[in-house]
Structure formats: structure tokens, C-alpha cells
């Protein structure tokens, strides 16, 4: 009797395990058949697959504007249908990698600039978009943004966002401690010293994420070198990374650290933790890019009292050297069109339409600064946005983040070295030498 039961039980188990396995296999194939049918479409209607990374939950406004743009596009082009897939940031990155390995990229999707997209371009996954730029979008983009999405002077991505970084500061804390907005590095150090004496943390910095500290280093290098964009040149191998300006930037940075300008234990803090120190008025200053603007203007989750107290100033000169209209920043995400897409023309048409519409809606409806030119006078915006847009129009140079400019593996070395430089575990000379060796070994 029991014997029989055991047999039935094990057979059921066995079948269940087969089912499990079969299901697993099936899942993988699903995407394949999906895209095959969508490519052919029904009748004359063509389907363009589009993937983006702004889910309704975490980026409600982005999500809504994307849907509006899609609706308008479909209304204008009745023979094209957009097939949408939305994932959150990290999941999106993972999925894009997997899809590209199996040649199943969506027809239109999001990518990041420079170093990130290089493997995709080298693997012939992205279509060149020079024709789209020339016919529809010539002169639309802010200088420097399109270049970040180009490899060997061919454009592979249409930038959607543009961010530059500022030092945001708390006016109330500045007033209470009787300090003025610094215009030189020495003045910044003096401000930090006064604040420290009064028991206020001068600068919030979450350097566990290291790209935050990297922005400080980049600004110092930019100011010290003046007109010459030494960082970009060193990364492009036109000059050595052991350039005096790049070493001096390290020295000035360690001078800031030694003066106690940054919050204690910054190397162990995440950027989010530093941000919350600044927004809860525990620190007076915070260097971040303009993607944070909503937090200082329109975001209702942040106390009004704090938002009223925040202003920004451009990174100070290093004692007279450097141009305050030169910024560290760069485009965020951009659109790519898949090289092996069956509906490439339609996909390009959609990408171009999307970029133009996004440029119109991004600032006002989402609070994002687009990579396309915007006339601040024509829009009803918080003052801080108008100021930033005006700054952008007057910008003389935008240096793209080092960890975006370089290949992913060099970026990792850079970020590790930044932590050590801030921590005082290496000298500025060693910092420059390691970068030089890493960059040289990649040539």
C-alpha cells in the first residue's frame, strides 16, 4: 500500500520537475516569438518596440510625459504602433545587456553616453543616427551633448537630458555664521573653517559612491588648468595624466580634506546619506548636478522652509585661475536605434519625434533639463531653473564625468583611486601615475 503511494508521489514529483524545467526554457523563448510577430505586424501597421526606464511608480511625471508623446506620435503616424516596455533603472541595465547578447534589442531604447555605449557600438548593436540629426535636429542640441553620444565622430545616440553641477548651499546657515559665498578655493576653505569652529558641518559628501568625490576632483582640475580641458585630453591620450595641473588638483583636494571641509567619515557614506544631511540642514554645502533641482524647488516632500533657504553658486576658482562658466556635467540618458531592427526607418522617425517633443515638455512638465536648447523666457519656471538655463546658454565648456568618459573598467579604477585620494592613502603623484598606467594599458 505504502509502496504504491511512494511510486505515485515520486512520479508526480518527477513530472513537476520536468514542468519546472520546461517552463524555465519557455520563458526565455517568449521574447523571441514576441518580437518576431511584432516585426511583421498586422496589415500595413508597423510596430516599433520601445523600452524605457521611467516606471510609473518611481518616475510618475517622466512616465506620463512619455505616454503623451507616444500618443501624439501614433495619432500623427497611423501606420506605426509603439510597443512599450518599462523597467526600472538597474533592471533595465541588466536586461539591455542580455538582450544585446542575443541580438534582440528593442527598436528604440535608452543608453548612457560615451564609455557605457562603446561596447554596444563596437559590437554593431546601435545604428548610426547622423542622417536623423542632419535632417531633423541640426542645431537643436546644446553644444557638447551630441558629441558625448558619438564614437569616432559618428552619432549613435540622441541625448535627452543635460546636467551640470553646482555647489548648492544653505543661505540661512551662511547668514547665521556670517560667511559669504566663496569665489576662490581659499575663501571656500575659510568658510569651512568658520563653520567648523561653530560646530556646523561645512560640506556633505557621500564618497562611498565615489562619483561624488570625482566631481570635486574634476572641478579642481578644470579650474587649475584654465582654458585647457586637461582631463578630457588626458583621457583621449593627447597628453599624459601626469600633467602638473592634474597632480595639483589632487593636492588642492587633499588640502580641502585636511581643512576639515567635508563631513566626517565621507568615504563610508552613500550619496543618499549625504543628501539627507544637506536637506535636513545638518550641512551647509553639497555639490551635486542639476538632476536634483526638483528637490530645491518643486518637490513637496522636502520642507518648504528648506527649499526657500537653498541657493547655488558655481564652483570657485582656484585663487583666480579658471573660468567659472566652465562646468562639470554631461548628458544623462539618450535614445538609440537598434542596428538589426526590421523597422529602422520608423524607429528613427519615432526617436527624432521623441527628442523634439521631450525638449518642449521636459522642463515644464517633468523638471528635467533637456539636451535640446530651451528658451527660459517662454516658460513659467521656478527662478532656479531660469538661472540654470541661462547659465547653460552662457556655458563655455562642459567636461563630461570621468566615469562616463572612460571605459567601465577604467572608470572603476578611477573611482577606487578617488576614494584613496580623499582618504589620504595615496599621494596626488601616485593618483596620477595609476591613471596614466591604466589609460596607457588600454590603448
Amino acid at each position: 500500500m505504502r509502496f504504491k503511494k511512494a511510486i505515485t508521489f515520486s512520479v508526480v514529483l518527477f513530472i513537476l520537475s520536468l514542468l519546472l524545467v520546461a517552463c524555465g526554457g519557455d520563458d526565455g523563448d517568449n521574447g523571441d516569438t514576441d518580437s518576431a510577430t511584432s516585426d511583421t505586424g498586422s496589415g500595413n501597421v508597423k510596430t516599433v518596440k520601445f523600452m524605457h526606464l521611467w516606471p510609473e511608480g518611481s518616475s510618475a511625471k517622466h512616465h506620463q510625459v512619455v505616454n503623451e508623446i507616444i500618443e501624439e506620435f501614433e495619432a500623427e503616424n497611423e501606420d506605426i504602433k509603439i510597443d512599450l516596455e518599462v523597467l526600472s533603472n538597474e533592471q533595465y541595465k541588466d536586461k539591455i545587456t542580455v538582450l544585446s547578447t542575443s541580438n534582440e534589442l528593442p527598436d528604440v531604447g535608452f543608453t548612457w553616453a560615451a564609455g557605457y555605449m562603446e561596447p554596444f557600438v563596437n559590437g554593431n548593436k546601435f545604428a548610426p543616427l547622423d542622417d536623423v540629426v542632419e535632417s531633423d535636429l541640426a542645431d537643436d542640441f546644446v553644444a557638447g551633448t551630441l558629441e558625448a553620444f558619438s564614437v569616432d565622430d559618428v552619432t549613435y545616440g540622441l541625448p535627452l537630458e543635460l546636467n551640470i553641477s553646482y555647489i548648492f548651499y544653505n543661505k540661512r546657515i551662511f547668514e547665521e555664521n556670517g560667511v559669504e559665498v566663496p569665489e576662490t578655493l581659499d575663501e571656500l576653505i575659510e568658510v569651512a573653517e568658520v563653520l567648523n569652529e561653530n560646530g556646523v558641518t561645512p560640506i556633505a559628501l557621500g564618497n562611498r559612491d565615489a562619483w561624488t568625490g570625482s566631481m570635486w576632483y574634476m572641478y579642481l582640475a578644470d579650474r587649475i588648468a584654465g582654458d585647457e580641458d586637461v582631463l578630457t585630453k588626458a583621457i583621449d591620450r593627447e597628453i599624459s595624466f601626469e600633467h602638473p595641473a592634474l597632480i595639483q588638483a589632487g593636492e588642492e583636494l587633499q588640502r580641502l580634506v585636511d581643512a576639515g571641509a567635508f563631513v566626517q567619515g565621507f568615504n563610508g557614506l552613500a550619496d543618499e546619506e549625504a543628501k539627507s544631511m544637506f536637506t535636513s540642514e545638518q550641512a551647509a554645502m553639497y555639490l551635486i548636478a542639476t538632476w536634483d533641482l526638483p528637490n530645491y524647488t518643486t518637490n513637496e516632500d522636502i520642507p518648504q522652509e528648506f527649499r526657500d533657504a537653498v541657493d547655488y553658486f558655481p564652483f570657485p576658482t582656484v585663487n583666480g585661475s579658471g573660468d567659472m562658466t566652465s562646468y562639470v556635467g554631461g548628458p544623462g540618458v539618450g535614445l538609440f536605434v537598434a542596428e538589426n531592427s526590421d523597422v529602422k526607418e520608423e524607429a528613427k522617425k519615432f526617436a527624432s519625434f521623441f527628442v523634439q517633443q521631450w525638449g518642449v515638455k521636459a522642463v515644464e512638465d517633468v523638471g528635467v533639463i533637456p539636451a535640446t536648447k530651451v528658451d527660459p523666457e517662454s516658460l513659467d519656471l521656478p527662478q532656479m531653473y531660469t538661472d540654470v538655463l541661462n547659465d547653460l546658454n552662457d556655458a563655455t565648456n562642459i567636461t563630461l564625468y570621468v566615469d562616463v568618459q572612460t571605459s567601465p573598467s577604467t572608470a572603476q579604477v578611477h573611482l577606487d583611486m578617488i576614494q584613496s585620494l580623499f582618504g589620504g592613502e595615496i599621494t596626488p603623484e601616485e593618483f596620477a601615475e595609476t591613471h596614466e598606467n591604466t589609460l596607457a594599458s588600454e590603448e
Partner: protein
Amino acid sequence: MGLNCMNKVMSNKWIITLYILPALLLITILIVIPLILSGYFGLMKWDGIGAMEFIGLDNYIVALQDSKFWQSALHSFLLAIFSALSLIGYLAVALILASKLKGTNFLRKIYLIPMLLSSVAIAQLWIKVYNPSNGMLNSILRMIGFENPPAWLADPNIVLYAIFIPIIWQYAGFYILIYYAALKNIPESLIEAARIDGATPLQIALKIKVPLIMNVFKVTIVLSIVGSLKYFDLIYVMTGGGPNGASEVMASYMYKLAFSSYNFGYGSAIGFLLLIITLIVTVIIRKLTATDEEIQY
């Protein structure tokens, strides 16, 4: 009747195969094949996106000369040693809990709490505890007179040990539970006999209870050391291996290479080396702790 039937089932080779097959299939598909694949990817120069290029054993040779890999391996071994040593502490706690003192029931539940929390929750909790300016630990230290308490997760000399503490805390419940169950299995008559012979509680614990659960203890040594060598979660969430590799362990280094540096080939090679190292260590520990016969009283 039942036992008889069991023997009959077990003597049929087909039935045995049938029983084992589902688990075997799952393990093959989900574990064995990926293992072989990762060893194979380790032979490739591959960024995870473009084409693979066969480069033979280059990745493995580079790994063996990679100071960062050895640094992370050292950290993993340090963690293994700490975890193994902390087993003694767990055992001591279990001995107390298993004795019939008042309140042990309540304490036992407290020790189990970290086991019920997910790793990420524990990491977030300890990030807050260690926060250099607002954290609980430094607030207490300042209150009792330390002027400049260290920034626990930022100081490269301290960070590794600072993370060991929550890891040891995290696994306390698990090992204490195992020891507790084993101790409860010791027949009461043995302990009573010893007591009548005049043994002190300490003697009973060290000379009767501990030797009787030695086999369980050996298993936990293997578990804790192997678990430490491949440890990943808290370190990834709390520091990401930083600052500059000061808290990097083998698994987090592997992850960083594959998913941040887009160096899947090299990352796979590191993963495969991690497997080999863990295997060798397991064999060595089994050899060292092997005994010919079980202790019986």
C-alpha cells in the same frame, strides 16, 4: 511492516534512481551546468555584450598575479577565521541556553531575531549604527567621553572588522539553534549520573556535553568557513568593497569585475577560482577534523 516495506523500496535500484532523478536534474541544470559555463567563460575575453574571444588560461594567470584578488582573498580568509572563532562563543551561549536557567526561553528568541531579518535590512540597520556623525555607536562613544570616535565604514584600517561584527551577529541565531538542538538531544541520564558523581556544571559542560556534540560542531566549522569564503551580501550593501578595496572579499570583487567593469570573462575566472579555493579548504578541514570513531559514553 513499515520498516520492511522501506527496505524493499530501497533495494530496488530503479526506485532509487527515480527518487534521486528530480533533484539531480534540478541541481545539474541550476548549479552544475552554470558552474561549468563560468569556468568556460573564464577562458574568454568577453565584455558581456560583444563577441567572445578565446584567450586560453590568460584570465586565470592574470588573476593569480592580481594583488587586488589576493587582497580580497585575504579578507575572505580573515572573515573565515573570525567566523570559526565566533563558533566558540555561539557554543557557550547555547550551553547556557540549554541549561535550565530562568529566562533562557526568552533569551533564545532574542538570539534568533537577526536570523529572521534579511541581509539588506541588517546592512541598512548597521549603516545607521555606524554613521560617523549621527550613528548610535558614535553617539554613545561621545557621551562616555571619546572626542573623536572613528568613522567606522570609512577608515580602511577598521572597515573590515566593523563589517565582521554584524556578520557574526547575523549568524548567531542559526548556529546557536543548531547547538541548542544537539545539546537537547543528550540523554538527561548521562548528566544526572555525572552530577551524582560530583561533577561541577562546568565539568559537565566541557567533559560531557561538548564531546557529545563534537560531530555537530565539526559540521558547523565547515559550514561557517565555506560560508565566509563566499560571503557577499552585507559587504556589498554596506561598503561595496570600499574604500578602495579595503573591505573587498572574493565574491564582491568578482561581482565588481563582471557587472561594474563589464569584464565578464575575468569575473567568471575569479568566480571559478573562488570555487576551487572553497573546495580545497573544505577538503582540508574535513581531513583535519576527521576522527575514526564517534565518542560514546
